[in-house]
């Protein structure tokens, strides 16, 4: 209805979204920004961040306070697919997700750092993910008006952006790669365009 099908945007988008294209776009932008080097956190802070994040999520995560990360062993009852989360540094984390679970839940179950401020109520855009391969994007159902309204406000919006709470694991999505937009990458220091409130 709103014409966000990738077919319209052709090869330019495909090129941008191939893995190398995505990463090189990110690094180029980071390095070209005047204070680019400030935006990459030091390895020390990153390591602390990772440890603290894990502790924080396990302690406070309302979705899975006590579950460990998904095991590879299939319990024979729920079919699982593989979803690969890609963080802002390009690091890939594959996780096993049962059919029917949303991407947001899957992220929280596996300590992936994906915000969910409104807890899947379609009242925010903090669970924004970018589908990195167009064939997978096209397999998803069109976003509803309500999801598109929230996507309008998402930082780093792309042609293949979706809200993680609205993307549900299905067999045909096995192997899908989802990039979590970098806040620092998209928070333009120069020429920042204020968003409405």
């Amino acid at each position: 209805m709103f014409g966000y099908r990738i077919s319209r945007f052709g090869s330019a988008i495909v090129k941008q979204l191939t893995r190398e294209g995505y990463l090189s776009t990110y690094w180029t932008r980071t390095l070209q920004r005047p204070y680019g080097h400030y935006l990459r956190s030091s390895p020390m802070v990153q390591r602390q961040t990772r440890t603290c994040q894990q502790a924080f999520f396990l302690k406070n995560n309302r979705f899975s306070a006590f579950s460990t990360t998904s095991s590879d062993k299939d319990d024979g009852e729920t079919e699982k697919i593989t979803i690969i989360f890609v963080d802002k540094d390009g690091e890939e984390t594959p996780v096993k997700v049962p059919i029917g679970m949303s991407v947001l839940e899957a992220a929280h179950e596996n300590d992936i750092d994906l915000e969910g401020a409104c807890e899947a109520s379609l009242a925010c855009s903090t669970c924004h993910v970018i589908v990195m391969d167009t064939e997978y994007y096209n397999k998803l159902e069109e976003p509803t008006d309500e999801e598109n309204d929230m996507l309008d406000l998402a930082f780093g919006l792309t042609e293949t952006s979706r809200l993680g709470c609205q993307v549900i694991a299905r067999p045909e999505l096995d192997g899908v790669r989802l990039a979590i937009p970098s806040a620092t990458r998209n928070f333009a220091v120069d020429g920042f365009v204020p968003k409405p409130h």
Partner: protein
Amino acid sequence: MARYLARHLVSRYLSSSVSSPSLHVCVVGSGPAGFYTAEKLLKAHEGARVDIIDRLPTPFGLVRSGVAPDHPETKIVMNQFSRVAQHERCSFYGNVKLGSDLSLSELRDLYHVVVLAYGAESDRDLGIPGESLNGIHSAREFVWWYNGHPDYSSFKPDLKSSDKAVILGQGNVALDVARILLRPTTELASTDIARHALSALEESSIRKVYLVGRRGPVQAASTAKELREILGIKNLHIRIKETDLSVTPADEEEMKNSRARKRIYELLSKAAAAAGTSKADPDQRELHFVFFRQPARFLESDERRGHVSGVNLEKTILESVGSGKQIAVGTGEFEDLNCSMVLKAIGYKSVPINGLPFDHKKGIVPNVRGRVVSDTSGGISQTEPGLYVCGWLKRGPVGIIATNLYCAEETVGSISEDIGEGICESAKAGSKGLLQLLEKRLVNRVDFRGWEKIDAKEIQLGSERDKPREKFVSWEDLLAAAAN
């Protein structure tokens, strides 16, 4: 260079190996900016202790006092913020006012890092004649009133003198106040709207609300969700002039560059097309979108001296000023729009405090990526060590709740770098020092447990009336509920 490197490496080693709290942080303001900053600091630094102070006894800032009562999903983020406040290295202290209970310099003496995230509690002015007439208020006051902010419990907007209200501005705050004025009160009765506001709205005679913007539909500042919502309200007649919907090449360009703008325009076009002829129903509620009009002066009533009776509006046209932006320019043609109440939804403004550098033109604290800078007389800015800003005080009063996620990430990034440079080398008193000072000054602080008592009582009272909560709206009631 070698000495810098050595000190850098030593402080990084130290900060990772010290297990007891070594970084004392105070965040001023407990809205989204304050809480996202606290959360990120706690995650990034195992040795950080964060105290969040707020002048209100209740936390969460505009999530509690700004988000409209009929938008409960937007308030769900309070759950996440509560988890931060309950973190073992975090404390919330409400009813503590910076500037009255303690000074900025005292705070900076107590903590290694002070982050000011107290938002924008004042308003932009139009600066036109008649602005001080009765019946003219800022939208912020009206919002705080219906959301039960303790500073506005005795506010009395005049909703009974006529059937018309004018709202200046077409952003989401303008839509919020229009919607609260026009929504059937039976629908509002089951929200957390303040009781005094519900009663006043039940007796309101306002039936026609005019949303006045100085530019066109393509430039309207509201977002799709809110627009879709108000355009879909039952039995609400929408009025948009077809002629206002014609687009220029510059408008097309703006829409091409922003999918949000394009969708807003499409929504308004569809609404204009769908608006049929109105029935002659005197009780019919109407929402008028008035484009290309800017207020020139306010008109005073002849019958009620000192009270507003309308707005004199100047027609405008748009002029391109480069980089795809168009501004409104007056044409010299004027017309009057009568009303008995005007709400100005043209933007908030931050309030400066003693000892804090402030840019009065932009209404923000001057900063570079969250680090507060002061202008020395030579025009060279100097960073204020250990002092940071986040949220509206840093960026201006724009953006949504999630905008603060990224804002906090930037400010915390700056703090982390500065920690690496050794700003937390000297010992600071932190929480202990703050509590001693507050005790000495007999400040009745409300900790998070106190808020939980207020919360539980409000929810209990609300359940008796089929509302999610019944808010306490006076300072006395809030402090009493927190204590028992």
